[in-house]
């Protein structure tokens, strides 16, 4: 990574673009890594400059999770693919009840991607990692020919450590348990979609992308008997609850009136014929806990800035389906999403 100054081609961050040579393993790649990635992610592990990072021993069970991020557009209100790729993977580890420790990041760049955009994305990742206190300790960069990628794909992996006695799993929900939701739904998905479709509303829709591990730690510290934590990302709340119901072999009954949706999100969903229950979130979690602990857990969640609007949204039961009492007073199934959510015609 130490290139003599006279050999280094300066990176034209303003007008330059990603070229095939940036992924070819040669000087251009080393230069890109040194000038951009290493500088932004700067930490002692990355600075070791080897094929892998060596970290100190930890005590406790390890949790590891990986996630690829392919969002289009790359930049949206409230975030971008960079911070999203950090938050998303941290959250996957956090939902196991673990304290996230380290991240890796692998980039697939498309030839022609503007270096200015890449820089913005990398700096956003660096900031997200810094704020979360989870360093990016190793990484990889590949470049594919123009037309063979969508600008940039980012895969991140996180490692975390699990405290003694913490066992969270999708198969642990029991009939009678309460279902808690940390806030409004649909914000991320509609922020991306409204940007993609060029829809504008009086109040902008802002992605909720955020790392939730401090919220999770506060929830664990409450001593409440937590069974399941999960972040309702792709497929939305409905899909997440169906996954849990099927893993645990239980049904659920939700209360539509308790599920908060921001007004512009509700309006955008209405306009496009989408159901916010199926729209992605990137900064929300669902918790299932023993009924006697639900109020205590809710209190702790609402005390955390990321879950001010937390609510008990339903109950686990011995039925076969995830169902919901509608605002109107009727009942309906909240099913798995079939295929991708497509707008209706008229």
């Amino acid at each position: 990574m130490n290139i003599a100054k006279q050999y280094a081609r300066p990176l034209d961050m303003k007008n330059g673009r990603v070229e095939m040579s940036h992924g070819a393993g040669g000087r251009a790649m080393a230069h890109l890594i040194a000038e951009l990635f290493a500088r932004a992610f700067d930490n002692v592990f990355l600075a070791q400059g080897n094929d892998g990072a060596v970290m100190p021993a930890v005590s406790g069970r390890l949790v590891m999770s990986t996630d690829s991020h392919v969002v289009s557009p790359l930049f949206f209100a409230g975030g971008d693919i960079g911070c999203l790729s950090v938050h998303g993977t941290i959250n996957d580890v956090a939902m196991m009840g673990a304290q996230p420790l380290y991240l890796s990041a692998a980039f697939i760049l498309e030839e022609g991607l503007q270096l200015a955009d890449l820089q913005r994305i990398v700096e956003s990742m660096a900031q997200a990692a810094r704020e979360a206190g989870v360093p990016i300790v190793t990484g990889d960069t590949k470049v594919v020919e123009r037309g063979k990628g969508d600008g940039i794909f980012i895969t991140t992996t996180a490692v975390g450590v699990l405290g003694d006695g913490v066992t969270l799993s999708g198969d642990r929900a029991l009939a009678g348990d309460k279902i808690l939701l940390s806030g409004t739904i649909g914000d991320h998905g509609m922020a991306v979609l409204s940007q993609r479709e060029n829809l504008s509303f009086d109040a902008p829709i802002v992605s909720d992308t955020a790392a939730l591990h401090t919220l999770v730690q506060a929830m664990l510290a409450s001593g409440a008997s937590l069974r399941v934590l999960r972040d309702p990302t792709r497929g939305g709340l409905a899909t997440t609850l169906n996954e849990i119901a099927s893993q645990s072999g239980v049904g659920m009954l939700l209360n539509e009136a308790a599920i908060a949706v921001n007004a512009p999100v509700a309006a955008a969903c209405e306009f496009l014929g989408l159901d916010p229950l199926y729209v992605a979130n990137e900064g929300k979690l669902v918790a299932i806990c023993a009924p006697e602990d639900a109020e205590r857990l809710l209190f702790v969640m609402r005390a955390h800035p990321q879950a001010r609007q937390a609510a008990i949204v339903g109950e686990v039961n011995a039925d076969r389906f995830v169902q919901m009492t509608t605002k109107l007073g009727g009942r309906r199934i909240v099913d798995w999403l079939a295929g991708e959510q497509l707008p209706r015609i008229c």
Partner: protein
Amino acid sequence: MKYVDEFRDGALAGRIAEHIAATVNPARDYRLMEFCGGHTHAISRYGLADLLPSCVRLIHGPGCPVCVLPIGRVDQAIRLACEAGVILCTYADTMRVPASDHLTLMRARAQGADVRMIYSTQDALKIAREHPDREVVFLAIGFETTTPATAVAIIEAASYGLKNFSILCNHVLTPSAMHAIVAGGVALDGFIGPAHVSTVIGSQPYEVFAEVYAKPVVIAGFEPLDVMQAILMLVRQINEGRAAVENEFTRAVSRAGNLKAQALVAQVFELRDTFDWRGLGALPDSALKLRLAFSAYDAEVKFSAAYHPVPDHKACECAAILRGEKTPSQCRIFGSVCTPENPVGSCMVSSEGACAAHYSYGRFREGAT
């Protein structure tokens, strides 16, 4: 959300439900057909059946544009996309309608056809302008709600002199389908009339059903309280032995409808002699085609794309369901072979389709899988 939440208010719904319960004669049945898929969707999504007395039976009608599109018409579009190499644009749900050879437009896209989902006809025009070297075909489907937007696109294409844009016209007419249902002898006591369709055509075209066939029609908005109120109005008419066209959706529908939209449609389209509907069969004067003056924009003419009728899947009961003769759970393959992930019939495709709505929202009521 203002102007929407008011129409989904649980307390108000409860009050209308009490009115309905107090008004019905429990000794008789009230067989009401909601013509539109939009109503079917609202009824299922809000669990409206739970608020109605058991003597009020809602029969799902054929007013779902995707559901009535016959296999042969989708085949036609797929052939254009795969063989003629056009950019085929269409509205979302249409992409999943099963066609011949286990194909859908979405599967055709996965196999390399250039199929694009659009939100408006303007998107299709934009694609045509951006790709002057490619032929762009818009698979136009829908009832009277979507027809004016297609008419505007044709007029604009003509005024720009766009040479690479055409449409595969499958626009169909609501009153024709209603005629087929009442003439076909489906046992029903009244119609919940279309919402969006009626904003365009007005309430006048339904008067024949009240006057000639003695079927009350109440035009209703797509919100659950609209539907509840319309049911109450229908129950009252039936109790009084009246048959009239009444309008619950006065905030958007007039007797004459949207005259400007009607004029645009009349300028661009004329009646087809006959059109195959899934479920209802070949109905005379039930669909539109482009007028001769606009035949340069008619993909059927431009690409000599002939329509070949294809029979529905043998076990599929979509036809009987679209005619209101069967309920989704009376179909042998409902929920087993035919699911929203793998629809065999068109009613399982759109969330407005009777089968998809029942599967997605209501199947807990019968213990189906």
